């Protein structure tokens, strides 16, 4: 699966995107796996209330299923307009 990061999430993790193989069933499980990887992930995902997630470019929730999902994006609340 493709992981995509924006704004300070991208800066903290140090990458705009990466491929990541996982058997996580939900976004929350995926986040737990990422946190366990390295300090920079633990830092980026330390407060989920400050984060939003999109699955295949649709805004979603952290308890959503990853079944069939190809692209997961993490970012802070949006500030368009």
């Amino acid at each position: 699966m493709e992981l995509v990061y924006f704004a300070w999430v991208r800066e903290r993790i140090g990458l705009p995107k990466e491929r990541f193989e996982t058997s996580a069933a939900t976004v929350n499980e995926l986040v737990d796996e990422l946190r366990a990887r390295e300090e920079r992930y633990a830092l980026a995902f330390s407060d989920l209330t400050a984060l939003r997630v999109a699955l295949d470019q649709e805004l979603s929730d952290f308890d959503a299923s990853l079944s069939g999902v190809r692209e997961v994006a993490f970012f802070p609340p949006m500030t368009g307009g």
Partner: protein
Amino acid sequence: MRIVVQEAPFDLGAESDAFAAQHEGMGAVVTFTGIVRNNAEGTLQSMQIEHYSGMTEKALTKIAEEAIKRWDLGDVLVIHRYGNLKPGERIMMVATASKHRADAFQAADFLMDFLKSRAPFWKKEITSNSAEWVAAKDDDEDALKRW
């Protein structure tokens, strides 16, 4: 409906003109234009706008379609830029055309509220000694409850 996401500046005058000119059946056209504001100290050098290419277009289209469903609109235009903008530069515009002014006003107001909090853009303010991501405002999230 026209949705444009681009780095280049847009010509507000020409866009407003073209949009209004093609809607003879519509008596009311409302436009909103967002402009890079300087900070309180006047030290803003630039505003960097990042976006989620692909999702941006989808999100803007969905918001515009929702507006067309809710109000009696002849047309909707959304233009949003990304990249490196200077104070005073135009970030984005929306335009709505309707037979009735209330529909045009409400739809433009609705588009802006959803664009603020539901379109995947992020802004970073650059001054000579700082670079800071603009935080989303609780007010902006609360504004969505109006609709």
